[in-house]
């Protein structure tokens, strides 16, 4: 008897939830955004972005986190056109060509005058933030000023594996772009500087902070975190004279979205001040469109490379496999 009552209650409750859910759906549309894990964490941009957009959109914004950029793309490929996602936020320039080839993305009409070191032209993806890869070190270190100096030095570095990490792939592209056919020789020279290679950024940065290496591959904006969040001025990024490779993070709408208008509205919101001013101190990257209030204090002390490097997204797939092979050969000796 008790069991039956209980079961009846449960049925009633689930029916109520289902109906309530349906009612809500009819009134407020849902916008599903796939993004990488750290974007949606409590200390990432996700919660603030969600609150800000929901204030204006009369909709329910749902973030779904999936690993990092590459994992995000793999998941989309698995789901295909059946995916629930309306927007994907968090692919970077290395992944754009592969993402376009899936045919899952719809062209967007959103454009703006982006504050990027390069001219942005893409009819599908809209950038929301960007940064330069750089080697981060303790401020008291006499840092090398290019890869050749680094290779000749006794300095120890920790890098990420390009097969499992976006910064790792970024470094591969950086050296390829700066040195072209000399890239294998540079890697050869760096091989005795590399203490170890980690699965992801977190492991590498953690090891660096433990004192396992003199420098770690990260971003020019990393010292800003230490400065602003920890009031710690002991970290700096090394300025390399061959230029710094960029990572531009982008978002796009899916062709199979059931909320195309809302998705487009989100992309417009994404390059507005409300979104862009959240980025610097949550994602620790440069906003794609400079907010009116400018950058937070602390960003002004960061090094700014003279030259921004970026391999055109459409050329990445062709270069990637060969560059990986060169990397493996040089470091596997």
């Amino acid at each position, binding site marked *: 008897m008790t069991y039956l009552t209980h079961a009846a209650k449960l049925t009633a409750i689930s029916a109520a939830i289902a109906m309530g859910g349906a009612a809500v759906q009819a009134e407020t549309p849902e916008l599903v955004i796939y993004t990488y*894990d*750290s974007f*949606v*964490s*409590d*200390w*990432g941009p*996700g919660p603030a972005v969600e609150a800000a957009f929901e204030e204006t959109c009369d909709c329910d914004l749902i*973030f*779904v*986190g*999936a*690993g990092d950029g*590459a*994992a995000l*793309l*793999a*998941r989309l*490929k*698995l*789901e295909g056109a*059946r995916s*629930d996602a309306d927007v994907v936020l968090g692919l970077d320039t290395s992944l754009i060509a*592969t993402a376009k080839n899936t045919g899952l993305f719809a062209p967007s009409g959103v454009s703006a005058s982006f504050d990027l070191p390069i001219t942005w032209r893409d009819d599908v993806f809209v950038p929301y933030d960007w940064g330069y890869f750089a080697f981060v070190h303790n401020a008291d270190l006499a840092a090398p000023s290019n890869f050749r100096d680094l290779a000749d030095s006794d300095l*120890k570095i920790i890098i990420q*594996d*390009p*097969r*499992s990490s976006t910064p790792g792939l970024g470094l591969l592209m950086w050296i390829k772009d700066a040195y072209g056919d000399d890239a294998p020789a540079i890697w050869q020279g760096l091989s005795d500087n*590399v*203490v*170890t*290679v*980690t*699965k*992801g*950024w*977190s*492991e590498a*940065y*953690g*090891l660096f*902070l*433990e*004192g*396992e*290496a003199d420098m770690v591959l990260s971003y020019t904006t*990393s010292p800003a*975190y*230490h400065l602003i*969040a920890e009031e710690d001025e002991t970290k700096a990024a090394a300025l390399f004279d061959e230029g710094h490779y960029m990572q531009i993070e982008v978002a796009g709408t899916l062709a199979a979205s059931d909320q195309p208008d809302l998705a487009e509205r989100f992309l417009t919101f994404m390059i507005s001040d409300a979104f862009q001013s959240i980025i610097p101190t949550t994602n*620790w990257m440069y906003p794609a469109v400079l907010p009116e209030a400018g950058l937070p204090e602390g960003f002004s002390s960061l090094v700014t490379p003279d030259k921004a490097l970026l391999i055109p997204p459409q050329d990445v797939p062709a270069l990637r496999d060969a560059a*990986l092979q060169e*990397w*493996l050969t040089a*470091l*596997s000796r």
Partner: protein
Amino acid sequence: MADRAVAIIAPRAWPGGLAAAAVAALILSALAAVVWRADASRGLGAGDWSAIRFTVVQATWSAVLSVGLAVPVARALARRRFAGRALLVTLLGAPFILPVIAAVLGLLAVFGRAGWVNLGLDALGAPPVSIYGLHGVVLAHVFFNLPLATRLLLQAWQSIPVERFRLAAQLDLGPRMVFRTLEWPLLMQAVPGALALVFVICLTSFAVALTLGGGPRATTIELAIYQAFRFDFDLGRAAVLSVVQLVLAGGVAVLALWFIPPISFGTGLDRPLTRWDARGGGQRGLDAVWILLATVFLLLPLVAVLGAGLAGLNDVPASVWRAAAASIGVALSSVAVMGVLALPMAALIAPRRRGGIEAVGLLGLSASPLMIGTGWFILINPVANPAALALPVTALVNALMALPFVLRILVPRLRDTLLQYGRLGAALDMRGWALWRWVLLPRLRPQLGFAAGLTGALSMGDLGVIALFADPERATLPLQMYRLMGAYRMEAAAGAALILLVLALGVFWVFDAGGRAGADT
């Protein structure tokens, strides 16, 4: 010694058959799903073959050294009684349940470039040693698995009835003769299974092998699978590599389990263990040295984890505590699932002369978590939202991963019990529930406690497949710890690692002590 291998009575076989079939189906369906979604594949390349070679080499070294070192340590612990021994035995289990990254940071605090060992060497004017390379990979794997191997062997030692040692003492057998007559046959029985288990654990290593291996030389099969999934999106190759992993693990397991001689030390009166042998000063000194070495090696990195964690405890955000609650739920669910699967399977394996079926249990451990996660994602996605199932799926996968440990813990004891109490049980016509209730479960109690503790603790510390399924609302403690690290919050992450360590050890201790209550270990 009773050489008879086939028990007179046996619990029903069909539930075990069903459980084994379910385990195989869960793993193979994931593999099938990946194969089904695969397009044209470029097949295995030269890099994949060298990954396979490296994986086998490091796993073999890790298994041989872990178990080889566990023999003297377990022997010393079995022969000695001292204050704090129970606590030490529990603490020695800690490395095994630490999240990988926390353990690696702990190891590096001791053996790293700026670690204590190198600071000491530097103070002495000696050149520094580098941990990075094959030896670093093996060192880390020994750190993880020496405690497990020690516990498994220790348990085997405890299966010798005290009456045998009494007899040995009456015959005035010295340590050497006791080793030959009692301990050697015991090792023959316990070592192959432990070797197979550690080999399989190390087979799926990825982050540890890469980080401490010092670069792409240390590419394992698991990393190659990772690359196939996300760098090349070549599901076919990922599936082939997963099969290689399964075949390697299965092959080693079947081989090892086949060699285990089905012997039993016969029954005793369950009196508290007293040892009359090895009372000489030399033997005492030797045991003390082994126990001390193992303690220092295993506990120093933990001290580093503890130190970093205490410093970061204040920075831990509230979400970590929510994640901790989720993790406890996952751990307890895993224990329940494990019980449902493992007891019938153990009952199926134990009465048989050879334990080949136990290899099925290894499937869960030897399958790539990424492959299982992706496969189930493909299967679940059309019918339900995978994120809604994140925690149940994690509990299930963690239970599957713990299954081989649990079987290795339960089967020898169950086999002995069936042999020893078989005739009595048959005479009383005990079957089904009565057999479990009055004979098997009471005799298995310490093993069940240990197995449940291990499952719970493992499940607590494992990142498993949650990363593939999770959404912001549902995170386990290890995932939350990684998220903190990913957001520069290394101190808070260290605090979360400490919470995780304490919770996992707590779960382990509650079950293990509950099982051992009243038993003399």
